[in-house]
């Protein structure tokens, strides 16, 4: 047991530094713009584009297996999210919602794939950018449908007695225009961040225990068993967060499109 490589165990309490992999730029140098994270982003985008292009290259009346898969994924975004949340009007948002779902799902999935094992979404920039897109989208469709003044009135002035309005309007303003994009992005980011942190704690904790002393060494097995269990939990979180982000975007669009309460 003393022959254990102490490279992993040396840095037991995992820190923020574990989220910044080294540069892998082929031209060398310490380039923070080209790391494993960047590579995963490109792989995710390429995978989605190639999958849907190949599946739809030669569409059949009786779908092939691949076409059926692509159609089910798009159908899920269209029927279960767009139609269910926004109503029949929502079908025109189905392409965006389905794309968003696929993109977040593949990006999240890297958190549990061997050799990648970190999701790009555990860097705040990616969820923040996605939330900005959704924020612009729901404000744009709201303003386009109702006009600026009516849209602001719809989303900020709830039907309540006038004397409570000075309290409610600032709350509604903060909730709709400030907290929504913030919570949308932080939810996805913190889920992926905490998931990676948990897996690190239990994996590295196993090494720390095995290196500690003879009595603690068997407990490291427990730590690694928990790692496996938490990986299964991560599968659930990966799928759920992709779904939740998309459903919340759809629900905000629905709120922006809705007529007066």
């Amino acid at each position, binding site marked *: 047991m003393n022959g254990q490589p102490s490279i992993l165990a040396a840095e037991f309490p995992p820190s*923020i530094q574990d989220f910044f992999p080294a540069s892998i730029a082929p031209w060398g140098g310490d380039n923070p713009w080209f790391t494993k994270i960047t590579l995963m982003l490109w792989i995710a985008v390429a995978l989605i584009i190639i999958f849907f292009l190949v599946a739809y290259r030669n569409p059949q009346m009786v779908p092939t297996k691949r076409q059926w898969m692509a159609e089910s994924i798009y159908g899920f975004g269209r029927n279960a999210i767009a139609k*269910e*949340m926004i109503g029949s009007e929502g079908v025109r948002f189905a392409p965006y919602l389905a794309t968003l779902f696929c993109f977040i799902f593949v990006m999240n999935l890297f958190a549990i794939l061997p050799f990648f094992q970190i999701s790009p979404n555990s860097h705040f920039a990616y969820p923040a950018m996605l939330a900005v897109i959704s924020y612009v989208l729901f404000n744009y469709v709201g303003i386009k449908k109702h006009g600026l003044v009516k849209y602001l009135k719809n989303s900020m002035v709830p039907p309540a007695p006038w004397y409570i309005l000075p309290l409610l309007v600032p709350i509604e303003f903060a909730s709709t225009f400030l907290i929504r994009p913030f*919570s949308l992005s*932080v*939810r996805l*980011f*913190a*889920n992926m*961040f*905490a998931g990676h*942190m948990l897996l690190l704690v239990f994996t590295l904790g196993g090494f720390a225990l095995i290196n500690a002393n003879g009595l603690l060494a068997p407990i490291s097995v427990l730590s690694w068993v928990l790692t496996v269990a938490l990986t299964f939990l991560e599968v659930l979180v990966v799928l*759920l967060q992709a*779904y*939740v982000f998309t*459903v*919340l975007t759809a*629900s905000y669009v629905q709120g922006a499109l809705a007529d007066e309460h």
Partner: protein
Amino acid sequence: MLLAEVVGSTAAIGYGLAAIGPGIGVGVIFSAYIQSTARQPESSRLTLPYVWIGFAVVEALALFGIAFGFIWQG
């Protein structure tokens, strides 16, 4: 006289306390869903999206705790 000493970050204790509220909240949401489905089984598909929205909104509070713990660790 020094009787006991705690080293490390007390943020861990604080986060444990902060997670109680969202924990109860998420429990309430799922208990409400189970009750409504038991009383009206046909409504299970109708209420499911709202379960996930409510779950996500409540869970965000616990996740803010994680994020802010790292932001303000100094």
